[in-house]
């Protein structure tokens, strides 16, 4: 049985790391909050500003989870309910007027939710297993054994799991890192508590 080494929640302008508030932003608007957190984390990665909101959320949660990480074999298992609907709607708005038809290539590339995995992989130089799952709720009973399999079969040394919500400015991220050593047992009960924090 693997362990959960840390867990993160981002919601309501706040970041909780292992249940402790480690950052509190001033803005209730996600874009501004994301910029505040980006600056607070002292990240120098200008491509961040080009990302859509879902990618920014996944990027920031991953950044916190992977601080000082030197491990390269980290699998990424992200999951959400809305897919890329937040960006899909913005894209649809841009292309709905035939007389003013200027689709944005920079927005269009984010009309797939798994781009968030790509952004995190590029940032942390990960060439590992990954999956973006769309589901009504976080599938703990499916994802937990998948994590165990990935580590036990040496496909990955750690697995970063994340549940994301991003739609019309309403956001939440619950991430946890699975590895051989940690602070919590990697079981469905603990996972469900982390996801619902």
């Amino acid at each position, binding site marked *: 049985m693997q362990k959960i080494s840390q867990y993160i929640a981002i919601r309501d302008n706040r970041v909780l790391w292992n249940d402790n508030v480690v950052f509190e932003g001033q803005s209730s608007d996600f874009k501004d909050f994301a910029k505040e957190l980006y600056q607070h984390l002292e990240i120098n990665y*200008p491509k961040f500003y080009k990302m859509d909101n879902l990618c920014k959320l996944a990027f920031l949660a991953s950044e916190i989870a992977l601080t000082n990480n030197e491990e390269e074999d980290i699998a990424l298992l992200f999951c959400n309910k809305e897919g890329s609907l937040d960006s899909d709607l913005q894209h649809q708005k841009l292309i709905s007027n035939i007389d003013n038809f200027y689709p*944005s290539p920079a927005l269009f590339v984010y009309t797939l939710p798994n781009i968030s995995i790509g952004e995190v992989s590029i940032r942390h130089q990960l060439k590992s297993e990954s999956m973006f799952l769309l589901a009504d709720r976080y599938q703990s009973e499916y994802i937990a054994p998948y994590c165990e399999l990935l580590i036990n079969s040496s496909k990955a040394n750690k697995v970063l799991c994340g549940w994301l919500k991003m739609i019309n400015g309403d956001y939440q991220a619950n991430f946890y890192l699975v590895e051989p050593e940690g602070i919590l047992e990697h079981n469905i009960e603990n996972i469900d508590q982390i996801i619902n924090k």
Partner: protein
Amino acid sequence: MAELKNLLKQQIIEVLNLEDICVADIQDDDALFGDGLGLDSIDALELIVLLDKQYGIKLADPKQGKEIFASINTLAAFVEQNRTK
């Protein structure tokens, strides 16, 4: 021409979300791609859309982009000669 160059810099910063860069940071002869502003292929597509939307210029041959987008100087000269709005 100076006014157009300034406007192009503002528009590039806005459409490409270059939040850490201001107009004064972009020199007229700075390379926009590669070592200069570090723009990528998606940025190039976004600039093509910008030319169409703001200046009525449709790039028929994407290969032209390499010369046109070399710097603010080359971009402004191209816009000045080809704009329809």
